[in-house]
């Protein structure tokens, strides 16, 4: 948009005015300075443009904005225009007053402009604002009471998706994981003794001296832990031997059931490790079942990587954590 000659002059004059205005704002204590001319407002079509007031932005009938009045030919201007209205920020018409004035007014710091902040303008108290809604604090922000998770609502529904996954017979685990045929030396019946005097017990080639039938004996003397290779669920020879001992001991102590707890090391993601621990636990379960332990005495659970034995981050730590722990659950029904 090409400025008209009048507009150019207005712009130049405005520049001078603003420059002078700037100086005065920056140093309010400075002596008042004389200035060349009083300048009219950039009035809007309805602007009065009658004197020397100037506001930062002209126009419209909206509220005035702290007009800075520069002295003009006719003395202090009254700055009646301005503020943000719906018209142009800079009015295109308006008279420049005072250019021909022969007297120079003083440069005032503040004009006596009568503009006020109107309540009806688009920037009035509440206008121009979209309602963003009602926001209530109460439900989200409680007093921080720790919730005791004892209230569980079971819906009691029977879950049946119609697939064979929910039939009552537990499928045996994939037998290709077992290198041997799964038979144990005590195939068929062998003599069993359980000496309650602390003498021990024996079953099919396995003897348990000092057996007192307690979980502590089981953990320390029978062997309640088997280990696995990375990402593997294959039972090593040593693992199978340990499980055979466990199975033999369990045959001697029908009062005990077991929970086979599967674990994984920390070098995997959480969900997968839960599933991997479940696979490992089930490998142990299937093997013990094949040894003759009644399946209803064997329960499995997985802790994934949540219960490491060894807290370091070396391969030797990880090796200790890839395991199935057999826990006695005395008389617990599964």
């Amino acid at each position: 948009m090409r400025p008209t000659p009048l507009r150019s002059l207005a712009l130049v004059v405005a520049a001078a005015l603003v420059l002078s205005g700037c100086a005065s704002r920056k140093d309010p204590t400075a002596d008042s300075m004389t200035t060349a001319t009083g300048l009219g407002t950039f009035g809007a079509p309805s602007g009065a443009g009658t004197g020397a007031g100037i506001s930062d932005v002209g126009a419209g009938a909206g509220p005035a904005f702290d007009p800075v009045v520069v002295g003009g030919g006719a003395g202090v201007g009254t700055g009646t225009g301005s503020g943000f209205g719906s018209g142009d920020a800079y009015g295109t018409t308006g008279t420049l007053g005072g250019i021909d004035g022969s007297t120079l007014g003083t440069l005032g710091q503040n004009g006596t402009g009568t503009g006020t902040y109107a309540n009806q303008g688009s920037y009035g108290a509440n206008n121009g604002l979209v309602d963003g809604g009602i926001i209530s604090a109460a439900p989200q922000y409680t007093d921080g009471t720790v919730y005791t998770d004892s209230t569980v609502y079971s819906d009691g529904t029977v879950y049946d998706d119609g697939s064979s996954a929910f039939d009552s017979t537990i499928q045996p685990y994939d037998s290709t994981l077992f290198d041997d045929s799964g038979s144990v030396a005590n195939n068929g019946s062998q003599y069993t003794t359980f000496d309650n005097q602390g003498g021990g017990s024996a079953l099919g080639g396995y003897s348990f001296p000092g057996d007192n039938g307690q979980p502590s004996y089981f953990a320390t003397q029978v062997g309640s832990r088997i280990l696995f290779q990375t990402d593997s669920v294959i039972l090593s020879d040593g693992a199978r031997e340990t499980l055979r001992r466990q199975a033999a001991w369990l045959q001697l102590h029908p009062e005990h059931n077991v929970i086979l707890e599967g674990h994984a090391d920390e070098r995997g993601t959480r969900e997968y490790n839960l599933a991997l621990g479940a696979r490992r636990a089930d490998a142990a379960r299937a093997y013990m079942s094949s040894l003759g332990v009644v399946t209803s005495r064997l329960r499995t659970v997985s802790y994934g990587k949540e219960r490491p034995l060894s807290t370091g981050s070396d391969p030797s730590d990880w090796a200790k954590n890839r395991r199935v722990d057999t826990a006695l659950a005395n008389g617990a029904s599964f």
Partner: protein
Amino acid sequence: MMMMLSATRRMLGAACLGLAALVPLADARAQSQPLKLTLDRGVVEPLPISVLDFFGQGGVADPLGPQLAAVIEADLASTNVFRNVPDAAIAPMVPSFSAPPRFNDVRTLSNAAALVTGEIGSTPDGRFALRFRLWDVVAQQQIAGFQYTGDRAAWRRMAHRASDAIYERLTGEAGYFETRIVFVDERGPKNERVKRLAVMDYDGENLEYLTGGSSLVLTPRFSPRSQEVTYISYRDGLPRVYLLDIESRRQEILGRFPGMTFAPRFSPDGTRVLMSLSRAGNTDVYDMDLRTRQVTRLTSNSAIDTAPSYSPDGRRIVFESDRGGSQQLYVMSANGGDAKRISFDSGRYATPVWSPRGDLIAFTKMSGGRFGIGIMDPDGGGERILTDSFLDESPTWAPNGRRLMFFRETQGERGNPQLYSIDIRGGRETRVKTPGPASDPAWGPVMR
């Protein structure tokens, strides 16, 4: 007269350099573009924005005034596409909320391109009200203005809602500031960790615990539609999936299956929960309708199939499976059936999560002994790794589909997890404040 003019000019020109730029103001405004950041193309130069302390009611200073501004500033700065301009010099140029700022002076004193002013007030019926205006400093006009009413105690939420509005106006993209995070708070040594569910504002404030720590709890997931969480707990002796309503704290078990259930995740409409069920050592994906509690089996094989996630249109599910011999990502129809592998680089892939925008899938990748968070297109193309460390795991999407939160665990005996967030367009991950070690974050929906 002309002599006076030039004399004046000489005197004043020295004092006010640089104001010549103000001269063609009218022309500049007519030609100015609407103030907008374009985020999806190349490097973004942060937009300088200044947020003034909010005016108190009736001009009386309110302690919330600077706090509101601080929350909005922190929200915008956390996006890395805004740069806060200190408001000390600008504040005098805005004498009140009801009047436009003195833009010329604002431009002189700062390079702020956008300005936020606000006030605290009350409605005619006496309720607490918060108002703000967003100004384009160059164009010298208001871009947006909002009023929120409610409890004074909810001032943080109102500030976050304001930040969302500001962010949206200036970027065209939805914000994520009025959101909450559910995560697992961890205490104690690695071999005896106590884990509790906790919920907090996305910026770490207003934290509350949802469980007491007596039972192991894992992998909470936020409903995309409501303030509900699904998670797993061992309180029943083995992993079971639960539903928890954050506001009422009511909990329900989602099924007592003959086997452990875990890896739950809501469907996009919040009416279904995907989960994994492990029976006889075999883990498959199931889907439960929350209304009828009917369960549908979606995978059926001897592989481990877990960590499922719906696409936002509800038509497909991405999950991880080792059916091919190692942990990889697969996509299948929401009805189950054939699954197509989408991860192909060397390494293992896990924990896939479909973006709420549908255009990306985030995941954990394990390769060369390291873990990292990455994103890829739903067909597997465009794989990009965003982070890398000893253990980064479990990404969760912000509701605007452009930011991820995850946890990072350090190694060794004293290793601990912490939460981090990162913009998928790049930049460094930033730590999310929690009272202690934290893992398994879940980003909730925008609260409206």
